């Protein structure tokens, strides 16, 4: 068989179509204008430094009396969880009868240079948890951590188990040394002290460059070839632009927290060896005795499933469940399939506990 059979005439036609589509697509683009995201109505209920704690509003009354606090990662922005009406984890959780709150970390600036993990976890998160405990008059709340926010949530639950009723983690790294973890592999020889001492806060663009280089041929090239085919469909194009905006909207990272996160988690993998100390407190996952729901994505190129599933053997909880999603790190929030399955599953799991 001749493996390649492209006729010159066809090729020329294809290239002509490509150019025309591109030119026309630019028109559709201009019609889109400003792409909005973060669609569910919400109310600010607490603020500290750059942090804002939001309460999401729903037409229906929450059936679960225990409030649910979502802790997002420091990397990228939390509107990923509420991109648009039909693709919103938060909307889905509200529909599932949960009373949803979210921590928005904001954009750290030079004044946040010395924020460390103790400030983030035992400071900010703990304050938000207390705000919700007081507001609802409950001893314990439900915690849902996303990606790095899940790692923080696990640490928090291990240090303050008396305040957490149920812990849910989504695409959350626990074991940073699985063989398929590319980010971790790259960072092993990087002198993080030199980097943070020199740069202070770590520019968001730098992280972005790193993330795109995990799959450069698809993420920097092929993806844009694909979008040209979408350009005559305004809705699809708008969705694409919304994702695009999110991907490149990367806050800088507070220097000290970044240093600790890279050294203790990526390099030292201390959560696995039980050597992690945050703010003078030992972090042992076996102190997590409350029910745990661990959700991971099977095709996650950022947090490999193995990195998440390591939690099973580390937590002390007897009530540990896993939910596996056939998709990627981002798809787990935004795909139609995820929208239909993930939030109801979380709601159902929480209602039973």
């Amino acid at each position: 068989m001749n493996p390649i059979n492209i006729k010159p005439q066809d090729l020329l036609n294809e290239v002509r179509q490509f150019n025309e589509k591109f030119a026309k697509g630019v028109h559709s683009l201009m019609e889109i204008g400003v792409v909005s995201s973060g669609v569910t109505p919400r109310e600010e209920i607490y603020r500290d430094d750059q942090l804002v704690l939001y309460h999401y509003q729903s037409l229906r009354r929450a059936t679960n009396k225990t409030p649910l606090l979502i802790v997002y990662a420091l990397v990228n922005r939390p509107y990923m969880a509420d991109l648009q009406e039909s693709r919103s984890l938060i909307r889905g959780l509200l529909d599932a009868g949960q009373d949803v709150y979210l921590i928005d970390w904001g954009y750290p600036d030079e004044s946040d240079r010395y924020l460390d993990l103790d400030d983030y976890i035992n400071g900010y998160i703990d304050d938000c948890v207390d705000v919700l405990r007081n507001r609802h008059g409950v001893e314990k709340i439900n915690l849902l951590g996303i990606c790095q926010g899940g790692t923080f949530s696990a640490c928090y639950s291990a240090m303050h188990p008396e305040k957490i009723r149920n812990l849910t983690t989504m695409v959350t790294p626990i074991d940073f040394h699985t063989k398929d973890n590319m980010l971790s592999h790259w960072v092993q020889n990087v002198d993080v002290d030199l980097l943070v001492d020199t740069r202070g806060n770590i520019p968001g663009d730098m992280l972005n460059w790193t993330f795109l280089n995990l799959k450069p041929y698809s993420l920097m090239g092929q993806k844009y070839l694909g979008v040209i085919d979408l350009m005559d469909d305004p809705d699809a194009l708008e969705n694409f632009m919304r994702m695009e905006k999110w991907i490149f909207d990367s806050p800088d990272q507070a220097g000290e927290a970044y240093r600790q996160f890279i050294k203790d988690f990526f390099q030292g993998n201390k959560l696995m060896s039980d050597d992690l100390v945050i703010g003078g407190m030992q972090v042992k996952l076996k102190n997590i005795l409350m029910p745990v729901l661990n959700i991971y994505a099977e095709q996650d190129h950022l947090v490999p499933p193995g990195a998440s599933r390591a939690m099973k053997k580390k937590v002390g909880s007897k009530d540990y469940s896993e939910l596996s999603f056939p998709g990627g790190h981002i798809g787990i929030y935004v795909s139609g399939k995820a929208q239909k399955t993930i939030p109801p599953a979380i709601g159902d799991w929480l209602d039973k506990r």
Partner: protein
Amino acid sequence: MASSNTSWFEQSGQAWVKTQQDYWQNWLRRMQANSMTGNPFASLSEVPFSGMNQPWPGAFEQWWQMFSPNEAEPIKDFMRRTSDMGKSYLRMAEAFYKASSGNNDTSEEIVNSWLDMVQAGFKQWRKQLKSGFNVDMPEIFGFERMMMKSWQEAADAMMRGLAIQDWEFPGFSSAMFPETGKAREQLNKILGMPAMGYGRERQEKVQRLVELFVKYGEALKAYKIAFAGMGIRSIKAMKKKLGELQQPIDSMRGLYDFWVDVNEDVYGKFAMSDEYRVVYGDLVNSLVAVQQASNELMEDVYQAMNLPTRTDLEAVSRRLQQVRRENRQLRKQLTALSERLNKLEKAETEKPPEARRQTASGKVSMQKDDLTRIKGIGPKIQERLYEQGITAMEQLAAMGQQSVKELEEVLNATGKITREQWIKQAKAMLEDND
């Protein structure tokens, strides 16, 4: 001039579509005319942009330039990324088309000779790098180059701010990449200058910076060599995969997708190799080291000019963070105290009147908790805690790291509170009370 109901953008966009149509019509005509005789690239004088080395991506770029500057920022960024991809796609299409027009080879032969050419390009590049020339990646489809370019752009942005300029050490900028004999000579001159007199310290720092720069150049070269190796492997993999195809590839888009799949796979293995971990780490570390040395030089200048430096700013940020932590502790203590006060007041109003009177006339004494219930606190320490105003279990329970440290200093007992876990004990007791 844009009329009221048609924007400049729409007009130029329509013009773009029209020009494109003409452009491609021209190509189609040309191809039909040449289908018997030979290569349509042979004589191109009446086709616009045809004087360029690569007319397809070239024309694309020209249209793009005509129209892009009017865009709003986020859309502009997106369009730039899309057009970068478009160019690399067209470059591939053009290379393939050139090779396929005007000869009777089968597509497979064309692809193979084309892959050979690309492989030779990578090999040539690697050879140049290894013999000391720190040259850029050859233009192949523009894609691998784009990956290197995004790194280089970030690095260049940093380098522009470098603390040394040519006026101080003539030839410095050309010495940055000392691959040519002349630059190397210049570099040695800078490094060999005896450091002495008034500017001695600065000169030493400059020499150190130059040394670090050379190191960065070496690291960049090593990274490129590893990258070239990956390029060669990806071509080999493409040849192998082509032989294993079940269905022939019959479109340019199919070929492009095939190319992406194979490359992503080869790259994935490369990126997980020990080799990559080392060259990547060296590249990042050596660049950051350059910036650090440069900052240091810059700080001297700023200090001399009485301007704030990064060190100054960091001192302020560090202090600010301490104050924030103290504030947080104080807030917690305040909340604990006011809750306690509310409780007391409530109890007070609920007491029978005579009891209330008695208290009102009597001496008001602040309630003191028995802190010796905490393991590690004896009567003496308790007395000293009272002196510090720490009288309630809640106060201990609400203490943060910073306050603990300070209290340990006051008590002259470094590490004692943490070691004996007073805070934890206090918390546990409060919970028991509840």
